[in-house]
């Protein structure tokens, strides 16, 4: 699903955020990406959704070299990837329902079908009863779950998450990880960037470990 071939990303001509990165993630796999903060986890995710372009190397997603995408194709490419952002990226002037509906609205989906899918996604993350609330009325964990609902409402084949359990307590973190496992079980490829090593160890999935922009260890799922 994702192939990195000798990918490097350099900022400002001097600082290598990522260097000579090569790995492969199979379709339907669930993978953790870990490393200390600043190791390049977010940069890597930003490369995959083509918020940034690699300075060197090639990235293939679903068999396509994404560097060859024309600017006008990028939006359509991004629609195939669900992303859970570290800072949620919710819009605070509209309800939970409308936040989750946003990807479908962008695609021009018919409102009735869209509402059905939004409710299904909210139900999945356990927030159906809060659909009319504004994001500000929700706790951090709930906001994170809204972000997850928005990422999956479109039924993407690939789900990326950047520190989805950032500041959550262990119980909430485990709940959220179980959600990702559920999506993985129905065939979604999942990639989660996290520095919560204890949690990752418990989860027993394949783990890519980054240090200073390099892959230090690739630990297979036990």
């Amino acid at each position, binding site marked *: 699903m994702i192939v990195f071939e000798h990918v490097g990303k350099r900022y400002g001509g001097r600082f290598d955020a990522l260097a000579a990165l090569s790995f492969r993630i199979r379709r339907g796999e669930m993978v953790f990406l870990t490393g200390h903060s600043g190791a390049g986890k977010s940069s890597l995710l930003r490369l995959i959704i083509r918020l940034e372009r690699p300075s060197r190397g090639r990235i293939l997603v679903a068999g396509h070299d994404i560097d060859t995408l024309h600017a006008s194709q990028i*939006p*359509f490419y991004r629609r195939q990837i669900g992303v859970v952002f570290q800072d949620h990226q919710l819009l605070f002037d509209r309800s939970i329902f409308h936040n989750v509906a946003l990807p479908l609205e962008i695609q021009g989906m018919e409102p009735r079908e869209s509402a059905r899918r939004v409710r299904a996604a909210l139900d999945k993350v356990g927030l159906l009863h809060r659909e009319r609330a504004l994001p500000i009325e929700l706790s951090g964990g709930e906001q994170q779950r809204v972000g997850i609902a928005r990422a999956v409402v479109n039924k993407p084949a690939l789900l990326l998450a950047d520190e989805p359990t950032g500041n959550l307590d262990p119980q909430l973190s485990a709940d959220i990880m179980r959600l990702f496992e559920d999506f993985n079980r129905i065939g979604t490829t999942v990639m989660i960037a996290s520095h919560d090593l204890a949690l990752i160890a418990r989860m027993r999935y394949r783990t890519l470990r980054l240090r200073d922009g390099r892959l230090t260890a690739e630990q297979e799922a036990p």
Partner: protein
Amino acid sequence: MSREASKGRGARAQRTTLSSRWRGWLRHHRAMCLDSALRLVRSPLGSLFTMLAIAIALVLPAGLWLMLDGARLLDAELDASATATAYLAADVDDDEAGRIQQALNAHPEIKASRLITAEQGLAEFQRSLGLSDLMARLPDNPLPASIVLSPSDPSPLAMRALADRLEELPGVDEVRLDLAWLDRLRKLAELGRRATLGLGVLFGLGVLLVVGNTIRLAVASRRKEIEVVTLIGATHAFVRRPFLYSGAWFGLGGGALALALLTLGADWLAAPISALAASYGASYSLPRLGWAGSAIVLTCSTLLGWLGAWLAVSRHLSKIRPR
């Protein structure tokens, strides 16, 4: 996900794309058209100020254009009154003058002519000067007979050529053209037309800047929203759409205000203008825009608003391209 499942889903997605994309597009247009109008209404004072600024920028060129339109009508009237006067030699008597007039009438360049005999000329002269006893004091009528000619081609060049030829005729002493002031008026009108065009372009740019600046602020206040929808796959067209509608609404509102200002201004100026024109013996009144003119003003202002918004949003979008 198994390969079969993924294929099935792809096919379904394709079907919905083909059948509903157009409807989805229309739906978003409708929603954004309404949404941007509501945003304008929700901050009425700010919207009004923007529209007023646009209106003021539009009123001046539109007003000048109207005045020139009126001047063009006046111009046609002047063309019709363009004449040449052929003064006959002093020894030509009335009978011969009549014959010369007939000869002149035979020329295709001459549309009409009017003979003023020496006596008629003197009488007219007396009347215009208010000297009733002039005749008594003069031993002899010093004025020659004259023929006032209306040429069929009133252009200065043709009239000059005509005059040169008529002067060759026997019995014709001199042909006078009163072209200088007509010429000056035409040049003035041309100057006015160019000034209006130049002002129109300048003030059109002004409208672009006003709308562009307003939309730039709107973009800045919705920066977060733009960022989020771009992250999850919104096209530039999708991001631009609400702002383009806002710009178009601003333009339309500004255009409507400009029409109102023009109507008020025309009413206010109508009386002094016709009084002034009457003192020159002309009948001139400011023409009204009418339906077609109003439609042109509204279309232009709406397009300018739209374009201003497009420029502002595009500038912002070009800054958030992936590096």
